């Protein structure tokens, strides 16, 4: 019997596919998410929109909050550690969380190196804006990838940019003759073996979710149609007018992403969406997607 193998880590991500993972900050929100059909929750002290508004240094959540949320629901619970902060990750692992998000939403703890995720029994998900970044994270042991988007904005444009980039690069790679693959790997600064595997599969070697700006059922369906395997919704649910109804609508939209009639039906009367932010109004040094190396 073997625990913590890559198959077991990446396998949980396979089980989350076609589902919605929702940010929650209290046990009550976690129950609303579970009741709405979330396939997992992300336990946080503050949602990204509030982290962005508060400024300063954002860190791992208080373990009390994480444990209360773990106690409130039966679905998987994820939590965020700072980029490179392997001690926060060890703490979350000891709490028994089901997945760790080494996340650019929190303030990075290391300006050069990410966590060596291969050394952990708990699986990790990491953000990526392009294929090179995704494969570097997988090389470090990430068992799941998500787009970075621009968290806490309610603006899907950056997440679209990132999934189009990754899918476009994979299409280029798939069309290359084998003798050009090593140079391609060098250009995107990714491990050659993972580049070869991606070429063979015609997709990333692990599950790839959308994150960073999804606020409506239509946003979720758009990201699914562009090739994502599932959806993270951060601030988009509990910063909206009717979280329970919106959560359920986004769950339906993620399954029926190719069915405009269903999408129209579930998009009705959802109340106020979260207030969005235009990306060009965010100063370059405050863009979370630039964090990660």
């Amino acid at each position: 019997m073997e625990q913590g193998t890559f198959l077991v880590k990446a396998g949980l991500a396979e089980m989350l596919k076609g589902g919605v993972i929702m940010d929650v900050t209290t046990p009550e929100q976690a129950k609303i998410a579970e009741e709405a059909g979330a396939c997992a929750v992300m336990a946080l002290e503050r949602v990204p929109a509030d982290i962005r508004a508060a400024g300063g240094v954002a860190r791992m959540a208080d373990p009390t909050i994480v444990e209360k949320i773990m106690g409130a629901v039966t679905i998987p619970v994820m939590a965020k550690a700072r980029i490179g902060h392997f001690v926060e990750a060890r703490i979350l692992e000891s709490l028994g969380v089901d997945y760790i998000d080494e996340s650019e939403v929190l303030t990075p703890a290391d300006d050069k190196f990410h966590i060596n995720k291969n050394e952990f029994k708990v699986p990790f998900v990491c953000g990526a804006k392009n294929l090179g970044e995704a494969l570097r994270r997988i090389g470090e042991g990430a068992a799941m990838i998500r787009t970075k988007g621009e968290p806490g904005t309610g603006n899907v444009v950056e997440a679209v940019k990132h999934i189009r980039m990754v899918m476009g690069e994979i299409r280029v790679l798939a069309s290359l003759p084998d003798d050009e693959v090593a140079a391609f790997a060098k250009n995107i600064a990714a491990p050659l073996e993972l580049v070869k595997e991606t070429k063979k599969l015609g997709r990333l070697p692990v599950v790839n979710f959308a994150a960073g700006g999804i606020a409506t059922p239509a946003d979720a369906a758009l990201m699914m149609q562009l090739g994502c395997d599932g959806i993270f919704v951060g601030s988009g649910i509990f910063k909206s007018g009717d979280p329970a109804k919106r959560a359920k609508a986004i769950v339906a939209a993620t399954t029926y992403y190719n069915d405009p009639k269903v999408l129209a039906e579930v998009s009705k009367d959802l109340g106020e969406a979260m207030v969005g932010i235009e990306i060009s109004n965010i100063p370059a040094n405050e863009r979370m997607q630039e964090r990660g190396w």
Partner: protein
Amino acid sequence: MRIGVLALQGAFREHRLMLEGCGVEVTEVRKAVDVDGVDGLVIPGGESTTIGKMLVDWGLMDKIKSRATEGMAIYGTCAGMILLAKEIVGSQQPRLGLLDVSVRRNAFGRQRESFEADLYVPEFGEQPLRAVFIRAPYIESAGAAVKVLAAVDGHIVIARQGKILVTAFHPELTQDDRIHRYFIDMVKDSA
């Protein structure tokens, strides 16, 4: 012959690929009408509470139950096993209830307790099955009509009752298609 894979949420792609690899035509099932055209149904791993709610909301629950009573074969892995069980320990969540067993969710623990292991199952030959258990359930108790095919530490992880087959683990995450071929034979027998 055509086999449906319930595609509401979870690892339906892996089941589709494995069945297609066995030379079977596969349909992804998302709406009640999709159930009409299939000879057998696979309910994949995923989140059982999510899939159960959607089965109710989208009119699939009654449809699948009525096809099952007509003799349609069903194979459930992990969440699929939970959804097929009559009893789910400590839970009122929606279920098909077609298999006379009591199932415990997340029975081996959380993700850090997830594991892979070799299972020796006479029904599937001498070579062991590489079984991948992910926040897996097990069957705590089973009725007389249920045939137990394998157990781990005394906990039932493969069972069959008539046209219903369940595994607590995920053969679709490996390259070993013996359980899928066994299920395909069950579908052939019921046709």
